[in-house]
């Protein structure tokens, strides 16, 4: 466990050492500041569009930074040969996979915490109508989605280059987030073999859309039931475990010498 924590700690430090996070953070701040100063038809007491922009940017940057961080872990260490040093010490391959995954996930979740915290403070200066229970759920559930994405990137990192891995993972993330909700309806409209195939895909894919509570938070709806939130955490953990197991199996057979 100490090995896992040590590897994870290095990964977390990596995201804050690079400029990417600061560029994204400053960019989001500038966009929000600019958007807050705009006057629309001389109506001044609006805040939902600001939450929408802020959450959209925060979630996009968090997903992007996390996916690229997780995707480059193994290939970069193979290239720099640091992987050999790590694994020649008392670090098992299972610990290595777990450490890289936990580090990438913790880095992504802490990045998003900063984006989310700043946005929440920003929103509270405009309105007091934010439900803290819904905000907490929105943050935790998005982090669960981020965990799934990190596990996917970690697994693909053992067979793909960082660029290909990040592209494939983020495309899947985006497509499933956007179209997952209507996939079953689209499947039911098909005829022949495509119909059962699409229905099976709908059942098998990790539905990233389950973890996006943005609209509930923005439009002041009640939080979802805590039981459902807990079940969604179990869902994300189960899929992440499957992806990590696949990654570990791929890595176990890999000749790194």
């Amino acid at each position, binding site marked *: 466990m100490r090995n896992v924590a040590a590897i994870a700690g290095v990964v977390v430090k990596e995201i804050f050492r690079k400029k990417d996070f600061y560029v994204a953070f400053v960019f989001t701040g500038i966009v929000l500041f600019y958007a807050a100063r705009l006057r629309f038809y001389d*109506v001044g007491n609006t805040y939902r569009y600001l939450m929408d922009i802020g959450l959209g940017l925060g979630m996009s940057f968090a997903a992007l930074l996390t996916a690229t961080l997780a995707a480059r872990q193994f290939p970069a260490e193979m290239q720099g040969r640091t992987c050999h040093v790590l694994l020649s010490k008392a670090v098992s391959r299972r610990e290595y996979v777990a450490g890289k995954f936990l580090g990438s996930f913790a880095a992504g979740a802490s990045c998003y915490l900063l984006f989310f915290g700043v946005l929440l403070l920003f929103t509270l200066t405009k309105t007091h109508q934010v439900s803290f229970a819904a905000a907490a759920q929105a943050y935790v559930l998005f982090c669960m989605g981020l965990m799934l994405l990190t596990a996917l990137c970690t697994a693909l990192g053992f067979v793909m280059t960082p660029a290909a891995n990040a592209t494939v993972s983020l495309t899947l993330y985006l497509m499933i987030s956007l179209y997952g909700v209507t996939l079953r309806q689209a499947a039911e409209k098909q005829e022949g073999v495509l119909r059962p195939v699409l229905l099976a895909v709908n059942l098998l894919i990790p539905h990233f859309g389950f973890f996006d509570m943005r609209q509930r938070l923005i439009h002041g709806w009640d939080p979802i039931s805590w039981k459902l939130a807990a079940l969604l955490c179990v869902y994300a953990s189960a899929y992440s475990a499957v992806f990590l197991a696949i990654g570990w199996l791929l890595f176990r057979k890999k000749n790194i010498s």
Partner: protein
Amino acid sequence: MKDLSVKAGVLAAIFALGALSFVIQRAPDLPERSSAGDPLFKMLGSAKAALGDLVFMRADSYFHKGLRPDLLKAALEDDQAATRGVRQDTMSRLISRDWIGRVYAAVNVSSEHHLDLDESDEMLPLLDISTRLNPHNRAAVLTASYWFHDRYRDTGRALEILKSGRGDNPDSWEIDNELGRIYFEKKKDAAQAAFYFRSALRKLSKAQEKFPFDPIRVRYQLAEAYRAAGRPERALIFYKEALSFYRHREEAALKRVLEKKIAELQTGKA
């Protein structure tokens, strides 16, 4: 020598294309707000308009308190009987077919509600951004004007939006019709209303096939404006024209009104 002439030809073609691009940019048909002088258009090209349409869809989602427009569209496609009650049932049926649908329904906004009046300001930033990004989105212009005119009773702002939209969409009969309606109903300026209804009618003639009831409605409104402006002879012409457009079963009540008004004018009761 041959090589040189080919190179000269290619160069001349490039210069000609360059010159053509300046001509195209200055062409009067290109609307000002979306082309020359607009740095966002220069940067994004036609993606700017697409972005504007996306923002308008988002405004629609705001109007439905966060309901995803694709869900609403899917529900509408699933059940053509689009009365409000039926649509709501269809929507919950659509997303609750299995456990995946039920989770989506619980996490997302999945029932149809509209913004309350005290929160309706929230839609305005998106409508404004949408019309700035795509000034040719007539639905966005008309929705923004509707919001000010019918919801906030701010007729001046509604007219401002429509007049600006008219400049960007010179072919739109809907904008002229709305201008006429506001001048007639709110400003009580029958002459100005008649001007806009007449303009709407001229533009509508091109699109009559698409809108079966609109030719009747615009003619009726124009006749009403002429009548209010003290020109019963012109009003009679357009009442009669409106009546001549009736074919089958459209708005029987208005047909009776038209017949009554024609009879009144013909007997000199106006």
